[in-house]
Each structure stands twice: as structure tokens, then as C-alpha cells.
């Protein structure tokens, strides 16, 4: 199943953007943990709180290392395809996913852009159906707008069907 490749890939800047945003998140995480640890020592909280904090630190360190390795592989694993009838997504480094959504079942499509994405002129597409929501992270701006348009048209044209 891991050799599935759909038509389109994400923007080439995606790993860079992801590393930046993950690192910011992790730095904030470390700061919060450091404050809590300081409070733990200062206020002499119960022992088990200390254990939990050390556990969290270990997880955060591992997570930070992973955050530098993962984006490249995640980028390679991502691909998507849009045709008249279906939206297909496949992604995942450790666990591979392959999702197929009929266009007729899509209820809304939107794009969004945070400060880091804006710097690299990228957008994220969010698709919502009756029971789920999916994201295509980091597409080049013109591509993203085109994709949104395409999904909107395909989803709407078929509305008459049901």
C-alpha cells in the first residue's frame, strides 16, 4: 500500500514550514515545562507530579528530535488527487492512510494561512463532509486557490444528484 502515488504533491517548501512551526511549538512546550519544574522544586509539590514532569520532558525531547526527521518523510508520503467525482488523499509516515471522498458528499471547502505559511506564500485547504474533515497542508497559493475552486465546482454541480 505504501507505493501508492496520486497525481499531485504538496508544495516543496512544506518540510521547511513544518520544521519551523513544530520547533516553535516545542520551544513553547519546553518553556512551560521549565516553569512547572521550577514551581515543583520551589513549592515542593508531591513526588508523583515530579515524575509526570520528567516523563513529559522525555516525551518532548523525543518529539523534538522526531519533528526534525518527520517532515521530509511526511512530504514524500503526501499526495492528493482531484477529479470530477472524488477527492483522494494519501499520507502518513508510520501509519499510511488513503482516503477517498466523493465530491457530492463535500459540504464546504476553505483555505487558511497562518503567519509562517504566509511568509512562504502557502495555503492549507480544509474540506468538510457530513461526518469528517480533511486538510491538505501547504499548497502554493495559486495552486491552493485553483484546488479550492475545483472542489467547490465539482461538489456544487453534483448537488442536484441528491
Amino acid at each position, binding site marked *: *500500500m*505504501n507505493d501508492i502515488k496520486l497525481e499531485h504533491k504538496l508544495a516543496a517548501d512544506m518540510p521547511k514550514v513544518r520544521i519551523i512551526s513544530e520547533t516553535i511549538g516545542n520551544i513553547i512546550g519546553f518553556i512551560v515545562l521549565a516553569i512547572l519544574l521550577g514551581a515543583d522544586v520551589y513549592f515542593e509539590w508531591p513526588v508523583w507530579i515530579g515524575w509526570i514532569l520528567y516523563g513529559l520532558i522525555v516525551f518532548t525531547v523525543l518529539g523534538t528530535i522526531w519533528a526534525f526527521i518527520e517532515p521530509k518523510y511526511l512530504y514524500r508520503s503526501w499526495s492528493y488527487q482531484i477529479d470530477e*467525482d*472524488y477527492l483522494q488523499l494519501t499520507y*502518513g509516515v*508510520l*501509519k*499510511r*492512510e*488513503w*482516503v*477517498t*471522498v*466523493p465530491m*457530492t*458528499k463535500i459540504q464546504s471547502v476553505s483555505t487558511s494561512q497562518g503567519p509562517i505559511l504566509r511568509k512562504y506564500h502557502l495555503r492549507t485547504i480544509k474540506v468538510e*463532509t*457530513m*461526518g*469528517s474533515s480533511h486538510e491538505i497542508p501547504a499548497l502554493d497559493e495559486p495552486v491552493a486557490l485553483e484546488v479550492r475552486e475545483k472542489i467547490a465546482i465539482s461538489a456544487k454541480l453534483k448537488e442536484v*444528484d441528491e
Partner: protein
Amino acid sequence: MRYHPLTIFFKLYQLIKNSFFIIIILYVIQGRSDFWLYEYGRYAFIVFIILRILYITVSWWKETYQWDKQAFHLKKGVFVRNFSTIPFNKIQNVTRQTTLFHKILRFTSVSFETAMDGADDTIKFDVVTKKHAAFLTDLVQKGEADDLEETENKFELEDKVESVKAKNEGKIIHFEPTKRELWKASFTSLSFLAIIPITAGLYDYVEPFLPKLEGFAESFFQSKWLIFLLSVIAVIIAVSFGVIRTFTRFGKYKISSNERYIYIDRGILSESNFAIEKRKVQGLQMRQTFMKRLFGLTEVTLISSASPGANDDSVNVNSLYPFLPISQAYALIEQLLPEYQLKTKMSRLPRKALFVKLLRPSYVWLIATGLLFYFKPKPFDLDITWWIYSLVLLGIIVLQRTLDYVHTKYRIDEDQVQWWQGGLTTQMFVTKRQRVIEISTSQSLLQKIFGATTLQMMNRSTPVQIETIVDVPVTVARFYQQWYQERNKEMN
């Protein structure tokens, strides 16, 4: 039009019923407590009740409903006025409930369930006369029929309306439980065990009032045959209690259908009547608990996109009879929904899937073992080391997974998917390709080593129905994706 004036009465009755425990706590158990929470609580509660009564009365005055050929028009709310129009064709199923309250007053309640987002997605008539309920139901069903006709050839319209009417009238009864089946159901449901918590609870209440006859009690419990006699009596009471419970709940059960609708009627003390349009059934689920498997029974549930409001009764109204013999269940499904062809020949998992299932780390076991190691509990004064419990749990998990391997069967062909799975409790799910609103396949690292995948599908329901089947071969996943993308065949 206003709702029936008795609605006020009904809502008051519900208000009292729901706040019964609070009343008991505030005014009886803690009646003399001067702890501030209870003291002010008593005043606050009275204020709340008065406001509530005012609200109920005013809202009855302000809230109205109307209808035309195609839709209900509702006016709701006291402070925030809300007007809504709900077309009949959005109504997924109709449930009529006649509780004891309704029975005494010779009324009934009807709710029309829709599958729209938002809180007010059911149109509920709490108290209506039986005649009016029948009228409203007819209205909705006729509205649906008109909608159906519009999409078809206009020339034959008149003919068709006539034939739809005729077909609606010809109800066929498919199932009514016999006495023997009810007895069987009484024992499989284990409902007689329900008496244990009830007696225990009762004993706690009664104990302080029991005369203290210590000498008598001691000599009483020392004589073994008396205890034996008492247990026998207890068992007899428990069993007859269970039987009565089952008979009242499932005694008058009737599954019938006509060309367009499926009807499920049940209950003796409080009745419920459920109707769903056949083309609005999203899928079927068959569940077998361990006990039911021993007796060869099963429960079939119709998946509808609107969930019939979870009512006080623990049985789902959209469940066909919960104790159907398997072969009869299959036959019944084929009669009710001829578009579903249940196949008995299905594919099984390859041997290596068993390894995947057994090797998958069990977080439940890991966490439980961690906790056992830390606390080293000794429940019931049993002198058993902690790791024995851990081993027993592991044994159960291995058994469960092995059974799951044995039970997993699947079949994906033409326009239908059907799969069975589960360990101690097994379930089957069947649906049509056009009813599936989304699919996905996934593969974890462990599955990758053994060439296994997980299939998932989503069906309309509230909340959405998500079904998965784990550890099928990779080739099936590919086939599944391809199969789904051919769904346009049915959509035309």
C-alpha cells in the same frame, strides 16, 4: 395551530419526574440541614420551579405549528423567536410513543426525526390525540410520496399516486414472537440478573427499619438448609422477574412492511411505533453477544441517518427484534429490504493476520499491568500476587483477539459490502455502495510487515456510523478503493 393543552400538563409531569431526586435530597434527606448549599438550594429550587412553570405555560401559548402540502412550519421560543420550515422529504423516520401517561389519558406522542444539523432536528408532539397523530403521519408520508413522484414521469403521475396509496395500505406482517421465543429471550437477555442491584439497593433503604433480632438472625444463618431454601426462593423470584420484564418489553412485538415503509411496533405498558422509509435505510447491523451466540440469536438494527431519540427504555426503537434466530433474521432482511442480498459465503483472513493481531501491543494490558505493579492490590482479601491478575487479563485479551481472527469474514462485491467481526461479541455490517459516504484504508508499521491493512467506511447516521475491518490483505484494500470509485454506476 397550538400544541394540545395537555402538553403543559405533560411537561409539568416530566419536570417533577426529572427533579424527583433533587426534591428528595433537598427537602427530605437533607431537609433539616442548615449547610448553606442546602439552605439556599431550597429557595433557589422553588424559584427555578416557578420560573420553569411560567416558561412552560408561556411557551405553550407562543409556540405553534402549521403545515402545508410539503412542509411543517414551526414557531418556537419565548424570548428568542425562531421560525423554521421543515420539508417532509427531510424526515427520515417517524416514532410514535405511548407511555403509561399517554395511555391513561388516551393520547400519544409523535416525533418526526430529520437528519439536519442543529439541536432542533426533531419535530416532537408530546401530547396529541391518536387521530391527529395518524393525520400528521399520513400527511408526512403523503408529502414524501409526492416528492417521489415529481422526480418521475409526469404522465403516469395520477396512476402512480393511486398505486402508492394502495400499496401503503397493504401491510404485511413479517414477524411476531411466539411464546417459546419469548422464553428463550428471557434467559438470553440475563435480565433476571437485574434484580440483584435492585434488591441490594432496596436492602440499603430498608435495613435501618428492620427489627434488630441478633440472636434470631444468627441462629437463622447458621442453619444451612434455610439458607438453601432462601436462595432457591431468591432465584425463583429473580427468574420470574426477568421473564415478566422480557414479556412486557418484547411481548407485543410486530415487524411489518409495505411497499415503501418498514414498521416496528412494540411494548405492552408503554408502546412505541417506529416507521422508516425503505429507501432511507443506510445500512444494517447485526449484533451477537456471547449469550446470544450460544442460543443462535441475533439483534438486527436498521441504520437510519436520523437517530431516533434515545428514550428512557434501553432498547433502540430502530432495532428489529433483539432476539431473532439467525436464519430468520436473514430471511427477514431479505423480505424487508430486497435490495440487500446477504451472502453466507465470505472470505476469511489469512493465517498471518492472526500474528498481526497477537503481536499488536495492547495498551489496556500495559496500563493495567503498570497499575497492578504499582498498587499491588489485594481485592476481597484474596492472597494472589499481582502478576496473576496481569496474566489473566493477558489471557482474556489473547482469547478475544484469536476469536476476532476466527470471526472476521468479509465480502465486497457488486454494489454491496458485508463484513463480520468481533471477539466475544460479534457484529455484522451490511450496506450498499451508494450509501457509503467516505472510505479510507490505512496501514500501520506492524501491518506493513505482514502485508495487512485496515479498511474503514462511513455511513450517514447521527453521529456518523464508522465501520472498520482490521488486518485484511493489501490486495483487498486496493480492490476496495477501486470498487468504491465505481460507485457512480448506481448514482447515474
